[in-house]
């Protein structure tokens, strides 16, 4: 029998429930007010008093109102039909909700239970299987969606029967497996999993060894992201976090993209709703929306569900990873999630840590980031979840708890700088502060050697050094004046400006420049580096800046031209002539 209870205290969205039976930590319950049922999660138990956070507004709730405990933690439904849906943080399909406003207690099905799928068996009777073994597949959009042994089935089983190819609904039985004791288990295409637990149905989690292309030069060329890696983008407001994330979500080389809009602006999500169904993924020729799942808990939606939304996104990501797919999960912004934790902790009157955040913030964040990764599945295939989060540091100060905790957990750091944003140098990824630990991985070095060019990493470091030297030269110029330093200092500075303007800066709103494939990045970078390696002899600093300004202008026109078009080649020729003229 289910445990029930009565409301005995209300502080904002924390409700204290007097329970009449056993209650589990993180158990889900429903709080009734009138005819409306609101979902809530147990976050603390003291004696028979359960403290629950309600994922909705508690307005009008009264002492004595009924509560039902459900006996399980917060779960998501995993089944074919998740792709291209727009969910709230608790996996309600926003598209199916009626009315302009989200009514309290709105619940909609996460997938269409009546839809029929073309099932093809992959396993046969007699096969030995365990959790996450592939039994069959259906075609979901253009993804081969694997039907797996549910992750909650932890033993070894023998397949008794698999349904023949044909059309089935998600709740139809498609396979029967037998456990060691001879009990039969019917398997359907749908399963549930508690979001706060990682799905660990894989044999091995090796170090990332491939690069995930994003089409953003400042990332791919300078600080590459690994497939199955983790990264984060901190930046003050207005530095372009969201624009950068949207660019990556459009261009990244992934099979499935999960966008978690966590406590951010609704209009930004509307942009995705509107654009993604129309934009085409250049790699596959399919609409972007076909590979995308949006989890949307905007800043004005209930705070408690904000925390749930990042876990919901990650769990769905892990589900698709188990099918051997490349998944990219992005959360904008993890600071809002941390703030939701702070609000809860505050209402529970816990002793606060730094900036009133809960003491275990750092542990929660690193635990979450650790769920990403490249995995080897039991059948030898690989799948990956790459995670990229944004952080919105209070006052743009990178020394605040969320940024510091995330820095410990994530391997790539894309710091957006206010200075760059102010001078409209977008993307505002700071070339000196940012890093990718993956450049140090021998696996990644080898991958880049093979896929771009031998010793590519050395070229990257050479470019970084040039930028560093340019900055130092500029500091000297600012202290001593244009005439107070040798002309070489100006040359050094302008070479770093050349790298900045041509490679690091990119126009996310220009149809061509927005997405720069790796082949094009390689060419541009080598061209720029080639020029930087030459020694020009300028008569004075005016001549130097004049020369580089002209050069930058030509390169910019080249960035705006279609790859290998006549226009593009034309600018390339002009640049070569421009440079050789100077040398003569």
């Amino acid at each position, binding site marked *: 029998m289910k445990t029930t209870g009565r409301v005995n205290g209300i502080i904002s969205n924390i409700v204290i429930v007097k329970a009449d039976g056993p209650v589990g930590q993180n158990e889900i319950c429903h709080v009734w007010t009138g005819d409306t049922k609101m979902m809530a999660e147990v976050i603390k138990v003291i004696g028979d008093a359960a403290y629950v956070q309600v994922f909705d507004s508690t307005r009008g709730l009264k002492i004595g109102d009924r509560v039902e405990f459900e006996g399980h933690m917060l779960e998501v439904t995993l089944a074919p039909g998740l792709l291209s849906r727009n969910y709230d943080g608790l996996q309600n399909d*926003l598209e199916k909700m009626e009315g302009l406003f989200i009514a309290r207690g709105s619940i909609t099905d996460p997938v269409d239970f009546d839809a029929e799928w073309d099932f093809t068996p992959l396993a046969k009777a007699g096969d030995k299987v365990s959790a996450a073994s592939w039994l069959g597949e259906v075609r979901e959009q253009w993804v081969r969606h694997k039907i797996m042994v549910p992750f909650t089935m932890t033993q070894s089983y023998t397949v008794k029967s698999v349904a023949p190819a044909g059309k089935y609904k998600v709740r139809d039985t498609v396979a029967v497996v037998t456990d060691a004791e001879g009990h039969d288990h019917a398997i359907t295409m749908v399963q549930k999993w508690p979001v706060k637990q990682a799905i660990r149905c894989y044999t091995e989690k090796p170090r990332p060894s491939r690069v995930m292309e994003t089409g953003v030069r400042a990332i791919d060329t300078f600080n590459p992201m690994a497939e199955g890696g983790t990264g984060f983008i901190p930046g003050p407001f207005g530095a372009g976090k969201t624009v950068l994330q949207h660019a990556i979500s459009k261009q990244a080389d992934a099979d499935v993209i999960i966008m978690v809009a966590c406590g951010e602006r609704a209009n930004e*999500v509307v942009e995705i709703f509107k654009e993604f169904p129309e934009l085409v993924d250049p790699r596959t020729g399919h609409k972007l929306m076909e590979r995308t799942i949006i989890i949307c808990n905007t*800043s004005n939606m209930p705070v408690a569900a904000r925390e749930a939304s990042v876990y919901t996104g990650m769990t769905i990501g892990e589900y698709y990873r188990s099918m051997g797919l490349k998944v990219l999960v992005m959360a904008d912004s993890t600071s809002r999630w941390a703030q939701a934790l702070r609000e809860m902790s*505050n209402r529970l009157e816990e002793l606060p840590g730094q900036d009133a955040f809960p003491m275990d913030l750092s542990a929660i964040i690193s635990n979450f980031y650790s769920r990403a990764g490249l995995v080897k599945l039991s059948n030898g295939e690989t799948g990956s979840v790459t995670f990229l989060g944004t952080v919105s540091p209070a006052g743009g100060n990178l020394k605040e708890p969320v940024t510091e905790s995330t820095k410990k957990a994530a391997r790539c750091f894309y710091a957006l700088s206010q200075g760059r944003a102010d001078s409209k140098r977008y993307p505002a990824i700071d070339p000196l502060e940012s890093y990718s630990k993956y450049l140090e991985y021998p696996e990644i070095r080898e991958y880049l050697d093979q896929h771009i060019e031998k010793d590519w990493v050395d070229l990257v470091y050479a470019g970084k050094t040039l930028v560093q030297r340019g900055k130092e030269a500029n500091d000297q110029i600012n202290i001593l004046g244009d005439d107070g330093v040798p002309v070489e200092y100006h040359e050094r500075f302008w070479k770093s400006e050349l790298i900045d303007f041509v490679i690091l800066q990119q126009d996310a709103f220009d149809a061509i420049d927005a997405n720069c494939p790796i082949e094009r990045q390689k060419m541009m970078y080598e061209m720029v580096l080639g020029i930087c390696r030459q020694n020009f002899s300028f008569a004075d600093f*005016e001549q130097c800046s004049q020369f580089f300004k002209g050069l930058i202008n030509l390169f910019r026109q080249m960035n705006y031209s279609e790859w290998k078009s006549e226009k593009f080649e034309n600018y390339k020729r002009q640049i070569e002539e421009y440079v050789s003229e100077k040398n003569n």
Partner: protein
Amino acid sequence: MTTRAFQKIYTRIDNITKATVTLRAQGVGNDELATVGGKLAQVVKIMGENVTLQVFAGTEGLSTDSEVVFHGEPPKLRVSDALAGRFFNAYGEPLEGGEIVEGEAREIGGPTVNPFKRIQPSELIATGIAGIDLNNTIVTGQKIPFFADPDQPYNAVMANVALRAKADKIILGGMGLTNDDFLYFKSVFENAGALDRIVSFVNTTENPPVERLLVPDMALTAAEYFAVDKGEKVLVLLTDMTLYADALAIVSNRMDQIPSKDSMPGSLYSDLAKIYEKAVQLPNGGSITIIAVTTLSGGDITHAVPDNTGYITEGQLFLRNDSDTGKVIVDPFRSLSRLKQLVIGKKTREDHPQVMNACVRLYADAANAKTKLENGFDLSDYDERALKFARDYSEKLLAIDVNIGITEMLDTAWTLFAKYFSKEEVAIKEELIKKYWKEA
């Protein structure tokens, strides 16, 4: 507020603090209103039988035997077309007498618009101010604050923007407005003959600060009525949100909550987001646009209030006194409109995005030149030209007293480019240069 029959009256208050009272009561709903000794109050916490009420006007003069009557419902506003042209206090009661507005009583601070049902904003709001229209174009359904120091004329600029914006309704939410500013708004709207388009909810400095907490929700409930029910374009002006946040801090302090940054409550982000996210473009053509004011102390945007605001709103507009021209300008470096990409070059002329960026880049070069000059270094020829450009740009485009159309702004910018720079220095796409370059 009407009292209904068989309402229970409580006459024993257990605790009184500066802003709250606690008493034993039954059958009370969360967020519900009550009258405590004739003052309006709202339920903020219930622990078993103990109910804590936040008294908006403060608890001065209340005693342990003051009468407490629960209303059985959260704060509401009566909405109808009769709201137009009227001035109300924070409770939605008419100021300066006048009849009570008839109409449907709606809960304030209601539910969220389903993000999936929203429409992408795409309609430009022209203000005639180049610092806004050219550099930081605003669209309907946007939320954007002015970040300004208290000595800057933000209320005047906001009133100007509101009147030029061609909105169907303008709703003013005044929080901690001085009486002088309130009268200023009133006379500006009156002189413009716009009074019938205006609805005002005002809490002046003469009223208790905690009352301010109701003002944005009142204003936005009225806005939702006109936008959702009537399909109108509504512009909501909220001034000053910093004073609103101060009131939040007072209440959370009185309720013994642990303060986070700058003594603000830990929930500040969510509290502000709930207000600002009411800005919306609706499928029926109606829209709510929010223009707010966040006053800064000494231009410090890292303070919790402007900082959290910046993360919520779609950009911010900075006012600054330009010492070169002696005018108040919209700062091109620190101002930003996030939604401008939806309209510039699409609803405006194609060269808009590039001209805008080039202007700001050249203006930045001028700022560098100025630093050089201040440090006693010689200026190059380019520096000299950049400085001259900056002066013209500031006077002819950035100053808030400029009132011209967007195409004219673009033409002005091209004229300035040609006057001071070569085509290479301006570095705009060649096709555009060919089409728009004005030979000096």
